[in-house]
């Protein structure tokens, strides 16, 4: 790089950072946007399950009866209560995260069979792991997120007329329009872009930047988490002591962890056999849990050592009553006495800050109106990234200099990353319906369809002329989206609000994609240059 001005160097940086990482970033943003509705997609992808609204108390009673009948000797029970976004009742025994989940009908208690599927969770996991073994993907996504921050700030630096051009969009003018579109979607949603990128990094902050942890705690995460609890209000341990043993804070820390199923009860049990005591109705604990978390704000119950005197009931809240991300938090009661053994301490200021930032990214708060805002903003972000990728090729096509080979490759990768990925995402939903429900390992097959379609799109992009490839792939995505409701109509699956919602959204997106495909010209030269009516009337050429 020769001597350059700030604008030139930042422009260079923005272009290369944006282009090379834009392909990955589009995938991260598209799957992240779809993951906003991951639970809804889960429901859509298991169409055999009923989704009528069921009272959590009734569900808990049904679950308790079933567990007492089928697994009376288990050391721990886990019950996933039906909630608004996850309306099924599930039970398992053993460690909370590991047990095989059985789905029950909340009213009759009979076991439900539903097709095994990767569900909407596929998009959620792909979003932060890129489907690579856990930490490799997390690091890649972190790298991409840093590139995004660099692209955003460099973009701001080089956008000289950022205020003047705030509302400027001149369509049908080739490169000018692409630049306007890219600028507008980037600047107008700047708060969202900055927030979502920075908070994404904050979620895994100790993985990405362990420096402070290394220097003050010698890298010991558990020690740091212990300090987090000690720093906030301490829960009285007297209730626990009344049971005859002291509660060690770390053991049942931040619930939902592996310790839950074992609990310290499991460690000392060999010494004195604990007497039996009938387990009170779990419905009571729902009431107690709701007293703390609010009506309808519970997501799960766990019972350790059911049927014994030292049985405990852990109540887990539904995320969403506040921005702060309280994943893994829980309220623990003694089953027999009903007293609170451990309540989640309110977070100290710095922990609250980190959790609020994480919560802003996870978007589990605020109900459906908020969720839709995030979804639409996410889609606009995808448009912003895609328009940047296309802008690069439009610009390079006009300029004679530069490597033609590289431009050619970039064009093809653009098509596969943007249009191809879109086709792959909706193809996953089609695979969910077309792959036979009884097939063992059908989840794997759904994943294979996703990656297979994506790979095919790259091949298609390499073989067809550029504009034709764009058009064909967008039409394919549009067709799959528009025809999605047919999959349900041709079957006798129960209809309900959530599934209809997924299908209506799919149709809407299909219309949008179809319109996009229709607007793509046959080739660069045949692009029309009609001035839009309003601009002609105003006669102003800025």
């Amino acid at each position, binding site marked *: 790089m020769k001597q350059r001005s700030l604008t030139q160097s930042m422009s260079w940086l923005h272009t290369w950072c944006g282009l090379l990482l834009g392909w990955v970033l589009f995938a991260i943003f598209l799957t992240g946007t779809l993951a906003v509705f991951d639970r809804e997609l889960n429901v859509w992808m298991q169409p055999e399950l009923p989704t009528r609204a069921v009272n959590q108390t009734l569900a808990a009673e049904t679950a308790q009866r079933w567990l007492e009948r089928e697994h009376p000797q288990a050391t721990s029970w886990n019950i996933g209560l039906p909630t608004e976004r996850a309306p099924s009742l599930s039970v398992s025994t053993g460690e909370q995260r590991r047990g095989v989940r059985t789905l029950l009908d909340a009213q009759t208690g009979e076991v439900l069979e539903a097709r095994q599927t990767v569900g909407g969770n596929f998009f959620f996991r792909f979003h932060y792991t890129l489907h690579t073994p856990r930490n490799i993907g997390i690091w890649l996504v972190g790298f991409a997120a840093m590139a995004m921050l660099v692209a955003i700030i460099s973009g701001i630096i080089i956008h000289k007329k950022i205020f003047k051009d*705030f509302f400027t*969009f001149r369509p049908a003018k080739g490169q000018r329009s692409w630049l306007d579109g890219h600028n507008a979607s980037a600047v107008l949603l700047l*708060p969202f872009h900055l927030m979502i990128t920075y908070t994404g990094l904050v979620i895994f902050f100790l993985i990405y930047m362990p420096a402070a942890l290394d220097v003050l705690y010698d890298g010991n995460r558990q020690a740091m988490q212990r300090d987090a609890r000690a720093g906030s209000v301490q829960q009285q341990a007297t209730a626990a002591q009344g049971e005859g043993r002291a509660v060690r804070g770390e053991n049942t820390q931040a619930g939902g962890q592996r310790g839950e199923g074992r609990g310290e009860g499991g460690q000392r049990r060999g010494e004195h056999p604990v007497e039996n005591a009938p387990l009170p109705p779990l419905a009571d604990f729902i009431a107690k849990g709701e007293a703390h978390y609010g009506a309808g704000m519970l997501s799960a119950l766990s019972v350790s050592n059911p049927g014994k005197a030292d049985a405990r009931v852990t109540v887990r809240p539904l995320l969403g009553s506040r*921005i702060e991300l309280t994943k893994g938090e829980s309220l623990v009661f003694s089953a027999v006495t009903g007293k609170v053994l451990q309540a989640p301490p309110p977070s100290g200021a710095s922990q609250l800050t980190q959790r609020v930032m994480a919560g802003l990214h996870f978007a589990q708060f605020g109900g459906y109106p908020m969720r839709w*805002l995030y979804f639409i903003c996410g889609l606009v972000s995808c448009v912003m990234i895609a328009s940047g990728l296309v802008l690069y090729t439009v610009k390079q096509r006009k300029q004679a200099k530069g490597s033609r080979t590289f431009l050619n490759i970039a064009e093809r990768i653009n098509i596969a990353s943007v249009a191809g990925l879109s086709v792959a995402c909706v193809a996953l939903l089609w695979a969910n319906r077309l792959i036979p429900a009884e097939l063992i390992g059908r989840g794997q097959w759904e994943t294979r369809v996703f990656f297979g379609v994506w790979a095919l799109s790259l091949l298609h992009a390499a073989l067809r002329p550029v504009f034709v490839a764009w058009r064909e792939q967008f039409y394919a995505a549009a067709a799959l989206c528009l025809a999605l409701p047919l999959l349900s109509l041709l079957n006798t699956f129960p209809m309900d609000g959530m599934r209809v919602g997924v299908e209506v959204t799919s149709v809407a997106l299909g219309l949008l994609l179809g319109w996009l495909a229709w607007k793509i010209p046959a080739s660069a030269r045949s692009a029309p240059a009609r001035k839009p009516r309003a601009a002609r009337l105003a006669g102003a050429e800025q």
Partner: protein
Amino acid sequence: MTAIAFPLSLTLAYAGILLICLGMQRHWKQLAHPRLPAQLRPACALLGAASLALAVYTCSFIWHPGMAWVAWFGMISLAGLALLLLLPYSTRMALGLPVAGAALCGVAAVWL
């Protein structure tokens, strides 16, 4: 309450953004120039800010304060985008949208 407050917040956000846009020389010429006197232009930006502030207030009917601010940022961004897309195609629609929004809120208020 949400059914009224949500479209109302969106309408106020859009109206605010529209007014701020009108306050800019370039867009005043594009949208209002022949009909409205130029003295009104500086007032537009202020009115726009007021409308945006009101939008935060109506958001707080749906969500508690912290969340209301988050939603508000999303709404003004999307409102800006809507305005940006309407401007080159139909200035009449761009100007008329808040009226349509207000009408929608009126219908919602009467119906519920």
